[in-house]
């Protein structure tokens, strides 16, 4: 199945080499290898407890790996000291489950946090205000500047989380279950924002989720700047739509800490494996 090739020389932003993580006697990750390049989106599917969040935390060194190596933005972070890791992490956007916002500061301060508090090249305050407003306008929440996270709904909190993750325009953004616990309409809004961010800034994404629809949206829709809407990438009909992969979306399925599948949407839908096919809704 021919994938649309990534531009030549696209560097690897995140690379896992035979990574293993253990918590006491429980194996959380085992022998995970993959490579996430610039402009690529990887959607990690898996049941609860399959190691998805551990994978995401290991990617930025919040959890140390027990075996294998992890490379983030070209740096080997496997044994990197926390101090150096902090500087590297500030170059990556992260959306936590439930948003991970600081609840005792306002929405504006939350979004400004990565710009104001990073250890190197802290931004002048007047520039920060402009950036914060831009980021909140992007997620259509510019009216919530002075509100506290507890005053917002779950979906709005998630959107503020996205604004905070992308405010520093990172080349790589990690999303931990961006749609968990949201109704289908809000979930769709969140995924549309993530796709919009991808196409606006050409960011690489690692999206951990339980919903196949999230990945499907990333793989098949593209943000049209002129119309301001998400549009399907191919209009050749359902049978043909996943034949190519113009959005560079790759699916990964985790099962009990191992990688059970890696490939594009068509390959995922064609899989006969009973575990993998459970994630793909069967359309009649």
């Amino acid at each position, binding site marked *: 199945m021919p994938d649309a090739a990534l531009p030549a020389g696209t560097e690897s932003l995140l690379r896992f080499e035979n990574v293993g993580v253990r918590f006491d006697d429980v194996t959380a990750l085992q022998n995970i290898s993959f490579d996430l390049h610039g402009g690529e989106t990887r959607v990690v599917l898996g049941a609860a407890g399959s190691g998805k969040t551990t994978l995401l*935390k290991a990617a930025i060194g919040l959890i140390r790996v027990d075996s294998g190596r992890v490379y983030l933005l070209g740096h080997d972070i496997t044994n990197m000291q926390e101090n150096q890791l902090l500087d590297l*992490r500030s170059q990556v956007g992260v959306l*936590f489950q439930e948003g*991970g*916002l*600081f609840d005792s500061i306002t929405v504006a301060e939350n979004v400004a946090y990565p710009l104001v*508090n990073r250890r190197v090249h*802290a931004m002048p305050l007047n520039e920060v205000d402009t950036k914060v407003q831009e980021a909140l306008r992007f997620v259509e929440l510019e009216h919530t500047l002075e509100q506290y996270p507890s005053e917002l709904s779950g979906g709005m909190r998630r959107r503020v989380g996205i604004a905070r993750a992308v405010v520093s325009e990172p080349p790589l953004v990690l999303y931990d279950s961006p749609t968990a616990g949201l109704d289908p309409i809000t979930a769709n809004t969140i995924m549309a924002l993530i796709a919009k961010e991808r196409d606006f800034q050409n960011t690489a994404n690692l999206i951990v989720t339980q919903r196949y629809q999230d990945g499907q949206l990333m793989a098949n829709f593209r943000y049209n700047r002129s119309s301001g809407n998400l549009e399907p990438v191919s209009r050749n009909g359902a049978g043909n739509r996943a034949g190519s992969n113009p959005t560079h979306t790759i699916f990964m399925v985790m099962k009990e800490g191992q990688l059970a599948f890696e490939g594009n949407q068509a390959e995922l839908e064609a899989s006969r494996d009973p575990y993998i096919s459970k994630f793909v809704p069967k359309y009649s």
Partner: protein
Amino acid sequence: MAGLLDFLKSPVAAIQDFYILSGRALRNVFRAPHYADDIAIQMDVIGVGSLPIVILTGFFSGLVITMQMSRALSQYGAVGQVGQIVALTLVRELGPVLTALLVAGRNASGIASELGSMKVTEQIDAMRALGTDPIQKLVTPRMIATCAMLPMLTIVADFVGMCGGYIIAYLTLGLTTSEYWNTAYQSLEYNDIVQGLLKPFVFAFIISLVGCFYGLRTSGGTQGVGRATTQAVVVASVWVFVLTSLLTRIFVNLH
């Protein structure tokens, strides 16, 4: 057997973790970035916020010491020396210890519950993920603020306590203003002032770091936050007593 070993190992591991946290917090004092805003906010919370309770407690302790001591001193016909007793007791011991206990109850608990809530809601992890060191951002400012504020609060408590003593001495013991303040002032030596200011400085380290330590170790949801808060206050208070005994011993020998 393994259970017994774990039981013995856990306090040693906790002390080790406490040392590591203290070392990092101290090292960060000399390292960029410095979060001046956070230090100022904490100074306001710990210093200005504790002022009313410190004034009230200092005043009444001075009042009570004077009443108690005047009875004992009257047996020797030395009621006139009450200013000296009040000044020495307050500056050397009661001022630093009472203020430290109040700040331990008020701020070690506050710090532990704030950091504990952040820990259980994964805000500490979020902070690390956004590239800020939680020790630099949360622990060091609280430590600096407590170390700056506790000696000042102690000075206030000492002074207000002496004023409380003066009211009793003047109104009920019939001492003149100059009698009371002269004996109080002349009894204080350099050594007393040094120990009266060194003690709160040392207590401040322990109170802030114990609060941060238990906060950052919190696990087990909201119940865990409650547990961390209680532990922080108890451990900080006990350490205040242990340290004041040690420091008093050193200063008594120096004299």
